[in-house]
């Protein structure tokens, strides 16, 4: 029999059992929709991680107080100076961060502030919308200057674009600072804090007026190049051991951006794999459902199969017919599943779950639904094809 006609028979048989077919496909629909969404969430998560870390140089190494335990001898500017002597480190500087009220005239908001050195701009690839960045003189002269993140600046302007903040005085935690620059909108949020919602002041000034000398700084070190990262970390660790005899390097965490990026991507991937496993379990369960229905169908049509054999159907043709039936049922479920998955995406984005639809998600979903049909349809189809024609004809 030509495939076209065989396929027509398959469709006729499926069509006459619409409701049963639909019920059978429910599991496949759920499974395929899940696979489609898993791929979308995976891709969305990956894109989000990449975007979050896009400003972060992979050569950046952070040295910060360990999560647990007390810091007996905190990091200081002199540590940064020592790090910088390592041949593997191009630049190192301390940062202090905190949160507080930021106000201009009657407008007030809460934001984060960072006490930084001028190199910070370069390492983070900051660009300015207005004014200029903090300079080495600002640091050494201990100028009470401030740079505003884009969103903080918008908030302080209170929706009036004609307001010029450059040269104006604002207060940060009740201390007065002069605005000398406003950053371009970065648009993305770094892990933890958004620079768009931060203000930046010279290091020593910040330490003196905002955070106090007991504050624990973080040191940002930039490796000379990517290959130097491991050596730079080794140097940092030995310097810390040398310089902080009480407590040693264990008081601190040394993290490089490259491995942080890798870890974030890894956890996004783990999440996707977990969801994929769930989807596959759903498909297996739905596959067993298909197998069940196909067995019932073969049983019901035993006499028909006998008749088909009597008028000349070969074993292979019966097998193909029943297998195609299972595959068509599961593919129909797959197509509906992908459509439902696509329709669910807006709901995910409403809950601000990052999800990106993709062709590979569609194809993977359909592929898995087809595999489900083939795998679980094969045994019932083989059973149909192997029926003894006489017994099949005699079956009532």
């Amino acid at each position, binding site marked *: 029999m*030509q495939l076209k006609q065989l396929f027509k*028979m398959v469709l006729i048989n499926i069509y006459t059992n619409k409701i049963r077919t639909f019920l059978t496909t429910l599991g496949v629909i759920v499974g395929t929709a899940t696979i489609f969404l898993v791929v979308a969430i995976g891709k969305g998560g990956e894109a989000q991680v990449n975007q979050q870390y896009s400003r972060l140089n992979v050569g950046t190494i952070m040295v910060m107080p360990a999560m647990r335990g007390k810091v007996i001898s905190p990091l200081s500017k002199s540590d940064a100076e020592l790090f910088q002597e390592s041949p593997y480190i191009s630049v190192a500087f301390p940062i202090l961060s905190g949160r507080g009220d930021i106000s201009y005239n009657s407008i007030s908001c809460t934001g984060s502030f960072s006490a930084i050195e001028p190199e910070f701009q370069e390492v983070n690839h900051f660009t300015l919308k207005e004014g200029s960045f903090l300079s080495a003189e600002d640091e050494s002269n201990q100028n009470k200057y401030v740079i505003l993140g884009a969103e903080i600046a918008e908030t302080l302007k209170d929706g009036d674009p004609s307001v010029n903040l450059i040269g104006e005085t604002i207060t940060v935690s009740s201390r007065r600072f002069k605005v000398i620059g406003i950053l371009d909108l970065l648009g993305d949020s770094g892990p933890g804090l958004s620079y768009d919602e931060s203000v930046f002041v010279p290091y020593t000034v910040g330490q003196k007026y905002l955070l106090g000398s007991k504050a624990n700084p973080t040191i940002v070190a930039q490796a000379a190049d990517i290959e130097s990262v491991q050596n730079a970390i080794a140097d940092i660790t030995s310097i810390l051991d040398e310089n902080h005899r009480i407590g040693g390097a264990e008081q601190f965490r040394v993290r490089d951006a490259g491995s942080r990026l890798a870890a974030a991507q890894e956890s996004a991937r783990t999440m996707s794999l977990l969801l994929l496993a769930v989807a596959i379990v759903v498909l297996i369960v739905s596959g067993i459902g298909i197998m069940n229905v196909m067995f019932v169908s073969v049983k019901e049509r035993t*006499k028909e199969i006998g008749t088909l054999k*009597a*008028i000349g*159907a070969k074993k292979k043709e019966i097998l193909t017919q029943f297998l195609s039936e299972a595959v068509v049922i599961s593919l129909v479920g797959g197509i509906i599943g992908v459509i439902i998955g696509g329709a669910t995406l807006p709901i995910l984005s409403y809950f601000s779950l990052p999800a990106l639809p993709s062709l590979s998600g569609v194809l993977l979903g359909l592929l898995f639904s087809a595999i489900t049909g083939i795998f679980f349809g094969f045994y019932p189809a083989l059973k149909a094809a192997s029926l003894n024609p*006489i017994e099949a004809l005699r079956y009532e």
Partner: protein
Amino acid sequence: MKCIIEAKNLIKLYQSGSEELRALDNVSLQVRENDYLAILGPSGSGKSTLMNILGCLDIPTSGEYFLDEENILESSEDKLAELRNKKIGFVFQKFNLLPRLTALQNVMLPLLYRGMDEKQAEQRATEKLDILGLKNRLSHRPNELSGGQQQRVAIARAIIGNPPLILADEPTGNLDSKSSLDVINIFAELNTQGNTIVVITHDVEVAEKMEKVVYIKDGRLSKTS
């Protein structure tokens, strides 16, 4: 004249528990081209067993069987399927039409299994149904047809591929007397056109209408009852 069926010393044994049952006992039968033969016998005599073997649906325990000069006992499963498709037109007691296909599609099936394309098969099936007076029933499904009409569709399906042998097992068993007569008349007509027909029945009245009758009892064939 050419032999369509040439069966020699067919034996069919069934093993039921420890007992051996001889469903066919040394059956020899010759059917020539254009024969119109009834095989008559009571229930349990072995009619269906014989029909299954003659119809290439089953293999005898021993003996020889040539169908239209093909040696059945040496044929593979796929070859048997092909022989059933090309050499035999089956007519069953319960019509055995596919319930989800229309009359036309049912009649087309044997041609489709030969690989013929749809257009051609459809044309030939339409002609056959027209001849059998079912011109207005082409797109009816079996459950929308009377028993007599269903059996006529089944006959159309049996003859569509011009097989050398038409094999009918109790073709009137599920029909009223009027429809039975119709079916017998169709067979007679087909026979005058040159078809070879073997009808298996337990009904003496039906058998009497055929050209020749052989009797079967306890798995043995004889020319007289």
